[in-house]
């Protein structure tokens, strides 16, 4: 369970990125966070595994106060939280399997860490993770020979191999084409259902958010302005989240229409 209580995050330059955030996310939820760029979506996500530190309030992950963690205990917390990035963040020069195996590194004895030797058990676990995202046959291919969608799946497999309780995904599909993006979202949905992992996802595509997530959180200038089931979202709430009082109206209207058509077609 992730619990935000009046969380505040102020950057050293004085920018208030998160303000009075109160949020409770149960194990196994699939949460999409939507909002304009710069609204604080990314910051919200990164506070959870202390990639960013909060400056006020309290944040508890599975009853651990994140704010008080230091050094080794932060790393232990992160072991239980997977994170996926927009740019995949893989080592492109080595094989897919080696990238996935990296997630076992912090738990290995020092000598194996230095020599880079993995046990058969670890390899088997990594291969299982690859099988879960459907790219088992690519295990010994170098990452730079894969497509963007396949690379994001490698990143997903790396996170799965960690066997986390929570997966944080920061714009995971923003640099993928629409078809691949949908496939990756399907993977997330399946993992969420089958393994009961909590998934929190930052996403620009409102249509995808509404289709796959069970809960949607709207963020606007560092505050939560919407929190509810995906089905509760309507044009009015969307336009409120996207703050479209001025010239941006056209763009958001378009995104919204697309979202609603999408929703209807799926339903």
């Amino acid at each position, binding site marked *: 369970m992730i619990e935000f209580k009046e969380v505040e995050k102020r950057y050293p330059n004085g920018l208030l990125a998160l303000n009075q955030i109160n949020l409770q996310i149960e194990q196994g939820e699939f949460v999409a966070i939507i909002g304009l760029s710069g609204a604080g979506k990314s910051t919200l996500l990164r506070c959870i595994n202390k990639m960013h530190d909060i400056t006020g309030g309290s944040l508890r992950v599975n009853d651990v106060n994140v704010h008080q963690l230091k050094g080794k205990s932060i790393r232990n917390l992160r072991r239980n939280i997977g994170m996926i990035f927009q740019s995949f963040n893989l080592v492109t020069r080595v094989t897919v399997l080696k990238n996935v195996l990296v997630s076992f590194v912090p738990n290995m004895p020092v000598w194996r860490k230095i020599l880079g030797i993995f046990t*058969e058990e670890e390899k088997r676990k990594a*291969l299982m993770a690859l099988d879960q995202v459907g790219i*088992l046959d690519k295990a*010994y291919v170098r990452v730079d020979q894969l497509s963007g969608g396949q690379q994001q799946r490698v990143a997903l497999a790396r996170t799965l191999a960690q066997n986390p309780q929570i997966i944080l995904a920061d714009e995971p599909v923003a640099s993928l084409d629409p078809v691949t993006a949908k496939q990756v979202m399907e993977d997330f949905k399946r993992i969420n259902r089958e393994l009961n992992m909590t998934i929190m996802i930052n996403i620009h595509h409102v249509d995808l958010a509404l289709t796959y997530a069970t809960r949607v959180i709207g963020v606007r200038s560092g505050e939560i302005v919407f929190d509810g089931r995906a089905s509760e979202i309507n044009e009015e709430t969307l336009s409120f989240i996207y703050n479209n009082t001025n010239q941006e109206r056209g763009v958001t209207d378009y995104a919204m229409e697309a979202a609603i058509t999408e929703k209807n077609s799926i339903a």
Partner: protein
Amino acid sequence: MQWKLLSPKKIVLPNGKEVLEKRSFMPVVWLILLVFIFLSIRITGFSLDVLVNRIEQFFVILQQMMPPNWAYLSKLWQPLFDTIKMSLFGSVAGAICALPMAVLAATNITKNKGIAMVSKFILSLLRTLPTLIIALIATFIFGLGTMAGTVAIFLFTIAYVGKLLYEQIENVNMEAYEAMQSMGLTTIQAFRYAILPQILPNYLSTSLFCFEGNVRYASILGYVGAGGIGLLLNESLGWRSYANVGMILLMLVCTVFLIETTSEYCRKKLM
């Protein structure tokens, strides 16, 4: 046994799927490297002991070079200019001659496989011979002096620029060239208007880069009597007047630094 070691290993997943694990060659590579290092140490008589105990001897000469003999400076200008001239003439002439050689060696322009093969072979043969050895041979033929050094640099430049150039020509976009040939241009005309614009920036940049390196090489050619500042270097080293050596090296470092900076600036503009 050997084959068994290299054949893929089978990993069975809990869900019954099988994956063939590719064997890594890294342990073998490391083993070979270690054996080579061991053999090389035996052959060359490398000894860390000697190195650690006597390394201060290395700095003895270095200390004697400081401070450099400034009075020697006036004698250095002429040989220094000779060195620059040698590398300049050799580089320019070599780069110009490399162009036809590269065209002959490029299989997409020269349709005759035999000519292309022979040109390529000549280029790699020329590149194999160290410049200093060519300079040495040249001193026997052209006598002592700058001519021998110029010839050595000229030949090296042909080989170096020629090789990089023909690789580029073989990789250019051939469509424009074919279009021009179909318009009735001759091979040379089509080359001039379709291929040359594509390779020109790279060609000039490679030649400049080669010139940079040639200045360095030219500075030691005098060692075998092929003219330039190397002659004085050899002399000063022979007489153990290390303050003079220091002056020569200081001059060289400054010159090379200047030429490198200028040429790097020009190469950036070309790209």
